[in-house]
């Protein structure tokens, strides 16, 4: 089986989406799939890169989108890719119907805030003749910045969920509900995440030697 893991974060290899996508790719390989990993943003900047991505989608039996939630939805370049794939599949008699799965993470504590983005991916699959294979969605994505090992409990729920998902996806199945539940399990209490998150913004502001406070209003109303 040929799988394409497509990372939709503009931060590329430094992103939580890459971390999660790569771990899933590793699991897919361990279960016998041939896996190609691509970064959507740099590829979509050029015509060649765009064509390469579209060809890679066509050549895959399974496409996995791994991306951060941007304004309740997919980052814009990934939206553009969906438009291009849909255009290509509408314009030609497609031989196969690859499966589509998604890994979505957001910076809010609640995994359900990813629901609209997951819905868009599912609808895209349905409208383009692809088969929806499910999604893993998690909140507290900001905690992933320092890797799995620094997560509470070593991120065991996330790793277990990715392992379960890779096994079933490689075998031609859908992401199991149990994996989605594990993946969505909060990594820590909500109060703790927001407390550390708020402190983190201040630390970054200081590190960047910003001249204005976090609450600065550059535009008068």
């Amino acid at each position, binding site marked *: 089986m040929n799988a394409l893991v497509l990372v939709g974060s503009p931060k590329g290899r430094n992103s939580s989406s890459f971390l999660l996508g790569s771990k899933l790719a590793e699991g897919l390989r361990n279960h016998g799939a041939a896996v190609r990993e691509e970064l959507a943003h740099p590829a979509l900047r050029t015509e060649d890169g765009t064509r390469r991505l579209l060809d890679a989608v066509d050549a895959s039996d399974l496409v996995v989108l791994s991306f951060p939630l941007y304004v309740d939805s997919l980052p814009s370049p990934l*939206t553009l890719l969906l438009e291009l794939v849909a255009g290509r599949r509408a314009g030609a008699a497609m031989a196969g119907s690859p499966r589509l799965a998604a890994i979505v993470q957001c910076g809010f504590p609640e995994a359900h805030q990813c629901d609209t983005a997951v819905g868009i*991916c599912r609808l895209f699959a349905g409208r383009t003749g692809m088969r929806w294979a499910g999604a893993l969605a998690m909140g507290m994505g900001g905690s992933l910045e320092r890797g799995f090992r620094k997560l509470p409990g070593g991120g065991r729920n996330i790793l277990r969920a990715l392992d379960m998902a890779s096994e079933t996806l490689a075998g031609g199945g859908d992401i199991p509900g149990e994996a989605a539940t594990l993946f969505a399990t909060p990594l820590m209490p909500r109060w703790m995440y927001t407390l550390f998150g708020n402190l983190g913004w201040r630390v970054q502001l200081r590190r960047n030697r910003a001249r204005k406070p*976090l609450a*600065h209003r550059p535009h008068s109303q």
Partner: protein
Amino acid sequence: MKALVLDGSREGDALTTVAVLGVRAALEGRGAVVEHAILRKLSVAPCTGCFGCWTRTPGECVFGDDARDVVRSYLDSDVVVYATPVTFGGYSSLLKATLDRIILPVLDPRFTVVGGEVHHRLRYRRYPKTVGLGTLPTPDPEAERLFAALVSRNGLNVQQAAEAVVLAGVTDPASAKMFAERLLDRVGVPR
């Protein structure tokens, strides 16, 4: 009253053009000064996710393209219209690129609880009401439901009223205006 129409249509998208004509007429009929931003004619690069608008130059994107002017117009408006072909229940990539660039800088990164879930704090005292105006060639209940849910969630981000409608196969401006009038009533834009 000021209104900003963010037009996420591609060249040749007759349905969204008609929808925009309808909503402009409805807004102008209510005395609004309407700014029509045709996004395909602007230069707005995709957000790079650097968080510079939060932790380097708070409130302002570090990139100086047309998105900065759109942010200014957004904050000056009483109502913002997201006009777009419904794209798998979401926005067109043109509109999405603009929203990705304008919503982050108008919010304060720190967290707060709104309606039982965590969102970012508001940076400004006042935000426009959000109106989603989607178009489809034919009715698609699943896409329409998802579009309404997305617009509603976008309203939560800025703690403002948000309403949406999808015009399916509407090709005459008079009908589009009628739908727009109902939409503006629902979101509370005064006549």
